[in-house]
């Protein structure tokens, strides 16, 4: 087990290196002028070619890319001093560079944004399961009935709406037209500061993500349950004289959860990586929104940082899923 985790983490490290290297090279050899963002912000948008050349030199774009990449990776581990426009900034480990647009260490900004994204992801993903699985189980027990068919088709309709439209509609109806009692002004307030505002500000985002995402989970868990209910061991459980709920929940659901958990892990990782539409529409300063803006501003260090964060989120959630898998199914041996 331990060797397995180590092996997976090592593999993850390789993936992270490749991800950051490829983004690094994209900026290096891409068609844009990576120093312009910094130049614009430092000169209040009066960036002359000479100035640009200065910033290009200062940011290291005239050095070989390999040595700069080495500096970057070294900074993540030990931190480093970065000098721009005659000003030296101490960038503590994990140093992800200075933002080209603000000049502040990226990690400082990131720290304030991670809780917002994690809050959205945890809340939204919980609703995936809390709504999706029970509805799916209920539908599977009534397979083929009118209720089942209505549910399946109405959920199909929901999931065929483009998500951004769905989110806007939720915003319109629940925040503007009918003010729900627990819904506050959308936005992020740290949980530690004011739990009620934290909840009120995120509630709509959760509902939006949860309702939209749970349609898929209803489908998965309905399908997995239908399959599990037709397994021989469920028939055995019935033949033992177990009550219906033990048959459904202890025997069938336990088995049906395995495929659902697999998909959930990947979805949760994706949510952590950033929910761009949700953050944008509900005005939450999370990783997704940050990444979107950074791409627009060609702010390499932020793009790098968000990509690394997304990769870490996916790698870790995949690992957790696999570990969970071996806990849920004793036949699975990790190696």
């Amino acid at each position: 087990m331990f060797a397995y985790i180590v092996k997976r983490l090592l593999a993850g490290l390789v993936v992270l290196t490749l991800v950051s290297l490829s983004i690094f090279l994209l900026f290096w050899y891409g068609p844009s002028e990576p120093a312009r963002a910094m130049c614009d912000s430092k000169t209040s948008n009066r960036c002359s070619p000479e100035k640009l050349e200065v910033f290009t030199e200062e940011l290291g774009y005239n050095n070989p890319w390999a040595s700069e990449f080495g500096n970057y990776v070294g900074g993540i581990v030990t931190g480093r001093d970065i000098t721009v426009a005659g000003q030296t900034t101490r960038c503590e480990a994990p140093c992800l560079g200075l933002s080209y647009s603000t000049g502040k260490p990226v990690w400082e900004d990131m720290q304030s944004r991670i809780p917002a994204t994690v809050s959205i992801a945890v809340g939204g993903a919980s609703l995936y399961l809390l709504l999706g699985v029970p509805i799916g189980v209920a539908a599977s027990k009534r397979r083929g009935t009118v209720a089942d068919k209505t549910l399946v088709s109405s959920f199909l309709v929901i999931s065929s709406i483009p998500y951004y439209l769905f989110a806007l509609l939720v915003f319109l109806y629940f925040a503007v037209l009918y003010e729900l009692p627990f819904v506050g002004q959308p936005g992020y307030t740290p949980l530690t500061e004011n739990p009620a505002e934290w909840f009120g500000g995120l509630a709509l985002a959760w509902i939006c993500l949860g309702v939209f995402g749970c349609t898929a989970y209803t489908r998965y868990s309905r399908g997995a349950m239908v399959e599990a209910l037709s397994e021989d061991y469920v028939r055995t459980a019935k033949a033992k004289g177990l009550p219906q709920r033990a048959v459904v929940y202890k025997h069938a659901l336990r088995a049906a959860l395995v495929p659902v958990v697999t998909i959930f892990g990947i979805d949760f990782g994706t949510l952590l990586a950033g929910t761009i539409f949700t953050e944008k529409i509900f005005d939450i300063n999370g990783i997704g929104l940050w990444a979107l803006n950074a791409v627009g501003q060609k702010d390499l260090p932020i793009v790098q940082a968000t990509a690394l964060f997304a990769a870490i989120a996916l790698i870790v959630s995949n690992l957790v899923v696999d570990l969970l898998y071996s806990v849920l199914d004793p036949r699975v041996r990790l190696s």
Partner: protein
Amino acid sequence: MTEPFLVVEDLTVKFPTEDGLVNAVTELSYSVEQGRTLGIVGESGSGKSVSSMAVLGLHDARTARITGSIKVGGQEVVGLGESKLRKLRGREVAMIFQDALAALHPFYKVGSQLAEAYLVHHPSASKRDARRKAIEMLDRVGIPQPDRRVDDFPHQFSGGMRQRAMIAMGLINDPKLLIADEPTTALDVTVQAQILDLLQDLQREFDSAVIIITHDLGVIAEMADDILVMYGGRGVEHGPAKEVLTRPLMPYTWGLLSSVPDVAGDTAAKLVPIPGNPPSLLDPPSGCAFHPRCAHVGKVQGNLCSTTLPRLEPGPSGPGHLTRCHLSDPAAVFETEVLPVIAPDLLEES
């Protein structure tokens, strides 16, 4: 004479489907006494498993239409409520299934699955009691080191041990009727022999009634006191095992016997197949369901076979041996025509 423990009368099971009504079992009647073994033989789709599942009320009331009567220890099962059925299942009637790997839950330890079966019918027992009972049953069915193996998962057992565990689970509440649905089909022959020995020892010990469902005539021959042959959802021959297997009266039974080679029989014996395929249950043939495949239709006057369903009634060999066939003297046809082809050695003996 006491009433047999299980009495099935005119049992009919139909499943409405999109393609039409599946006539899985039609007007089936049989009974099993305490301490006796009934073998039910038939091919896939003959209704042998469907009828036995009805005994435990395992069919979904929403999808199955069941009529007729099934009396278990005097209690009517058809139409019985779910909560009363539950008291019957696993307690009065236990069932063991073909593929023990699929029939045991892969995520729970063998011991806890056994204990669960015990606890559900002994709500006052403690978990420790149930575990002790599980170990005792594992030991009883010949699993070595049962106190250790009780904490194994099913996949850690060999095929034979899984089937033993399945049997232990079936017998944990000392049921009066054990239904074994193809209990050895997935097993190797030496393991099959072990399991069949075990089943017989246990039956003697518990004095339970046993129904063994199989397509393997050899297994039936060794295990059953009585045999019911099913075809197209109906019983077509019913009688003492020796009678049915050595002096069968129904051409379908002849067909089964002539379709399987015998490991010790005459090598001059011919394998004579039954032509065609098993009947459609959606649209069963008129008259005798076997007539489209029967090679003896010509011996019956007119087109009786294709128009009139023969009744399951006593044949020439006595009141205990029933057959569903229009042939006037099936015993003679079997001895003069069939036996010389499929087992010439037996002819010389008799």
